[in-house]
């Protein structure tokens, strides 16, 4: 019996220390998956990359203590609405579909959407080019919505939990193409595995309704105060050169987009 009491006491302690340690921090949800150059983990388990540095800059500017909280990609929005996290900053595009459930800050980057495939197979990133092929996308992304709208009749669609797994299956030859953010795909093409197998087939036709105007921080609809702070901070780091400074480390162009 004593042991049970001790266990219960330990549980209470654990719950309490977990509970009240971080009252004032903003929990920023992200999916713990390799998504270079925006997100990548090093061997010590630390996350780095362009978006991590931008999050850091935005939080410093807005005088917020941000805490990165790993949540699987398809659980991010539910985690936000059930208040497990306070913001999503994970290359999530601002779309009308998502706006039904959550709100977004202003965009902080915007890049085109591309399709890659195996080397030596020439095809274009449109329904005619993808006819009869298997195209892989990450679930619950703008890309998955896009291929479902535009390529359903032409191609077979396979959905992956992470973009990294789709890339992996492209290299293994299990799928014929994958569609994703052009910069993320470029990083894969420059990696050893990517260089060996695949090349760029082209950018897909624009569809603003689905692909959206860019990437923003996902927020709860009622959190207007946080939204105001983040918007001001995004504008501030654009103006004071911090954004350009971080971007220069990763890209030779401005990812903010037009």
């Amino acid at each position, binding site marked *: 019996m004593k042991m049970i009491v001790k266990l219960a006491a330990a549980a209470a302690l654990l719950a309490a220390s977990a509970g009240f340690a971080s009252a004032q921090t903003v929990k920023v949800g992200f999916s713990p998956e390799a998504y270079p150059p925006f997100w990548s983990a090093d061997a010590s388990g630390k996350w780095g990359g362009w978006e991590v540095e931008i999050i850091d800059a935005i939080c410093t500017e807005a005088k917020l203590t941000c805490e990165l909280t790993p949540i699987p990609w*398809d659980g991010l929005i539910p985690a936000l609405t059930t208040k497990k996290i306070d913001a999503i900053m994970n290359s999530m595009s601002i779309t009308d579909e*998502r706006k039904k459930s959550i709100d977004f800050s202003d965009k902080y980057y915007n890049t085109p959407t591309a399709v890659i495939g195996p080397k030596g197979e020439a095809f274009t990133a449109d329904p005619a080019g993808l006819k009869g092929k298997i195209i892989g996308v990450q679930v619950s992304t703008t890309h998955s919505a896009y291929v479902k709208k535009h390529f359903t009749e032409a191609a077979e669609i396979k959905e992956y939990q992470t973009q990294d797994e789709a890339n992996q299956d492209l*290299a293994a030859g299990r799928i014929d193409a994958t569609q994703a953010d052009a910069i993320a795909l470029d990083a894969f093409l420059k990696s050893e595995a990517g260089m*060996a197998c695949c090349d760029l087939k082209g950018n897909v036709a624009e569809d603003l309704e689905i692909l959206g105007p860019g990437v923003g921080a996902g927020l709860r609809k009622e959190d207007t105060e946080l939204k105001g702070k983040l918007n001001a901070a995004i504008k501030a780091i654009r103006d004071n050169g911090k954004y350009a400074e971080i971007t220069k480390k990763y890209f030779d162009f401005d990812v903010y987009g037009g």
Partner: protein
Amino acid sequence: MNVRTASLAEFAARSPWLQPHRILLMAVGVALVAAAAIFMRWDWLPNYYGLALQGIWRTVWILVVTCVLGIMLAVPLGLAQAAGPWWLAMPANAFCTVIRGTPLLLQLWLLYYGLGSLFPQFPWIRQSDLWPYLRQAWPYAVLSLTLSFAAYEGEVMRGAFAGVPKGQLEAARAYGMRPFTIFRRIWLPQALHRALPTLAGETVLQLKATPLVATITVIDIYAVASRVRQDTFIVYEPLLLLALIYLVISGIIILLFRKMEARIPVRLG
């Protein structure tokens, strides 16, 4: 005591299962279900109805195929461990230990992504006749679930083979039966009969393992529920429905096995 409680008590006496407190609990349960039906969001159901049926079919298909194949593998595995020479017993035992000692999720990912990552080094694989199967996800799902079931059930079969009374086998030998006939007519049927009571539980455990295949792009009923969550951002409703579906399938499995056991006479020999 008024008429109503009297009749209730009478009713309860007639059927021991239906006692007054059960009626109360059932009323609470019905109220909960009704509340869930009224207050939760179910408007997505018509859109995903077809997909859900397909998903259930795929889950059941994988379950049946892997259980049947798994049993077929478990028989030699059990026999090798119970009566085989050491050079058969050792590998069989090692196989069971390794599979039972590591998580199925890891085995599945090792087979699918691990093997997949080796493909680019062997370009000839893509020209082979097996490639159309290696390309798809379901063969890996079937393979790893079959191996897992075989390992767990192989352990059960080992006990079952060892548990058949020696006298039975000696009697068969005394009749001049050939070894294979003894195995087919005496040893195997009795071992299977001994293993049958655990089989229902093992099959339910196997059902509970099937949703893992969704992580390698096989679209079973679990994947359909995830799809609903991802498309609509509705969290609880698809998961609750999913739990209900698994409960029903488990119930059906248990009923089927109960029927099967009832058809076999309890006392053999």
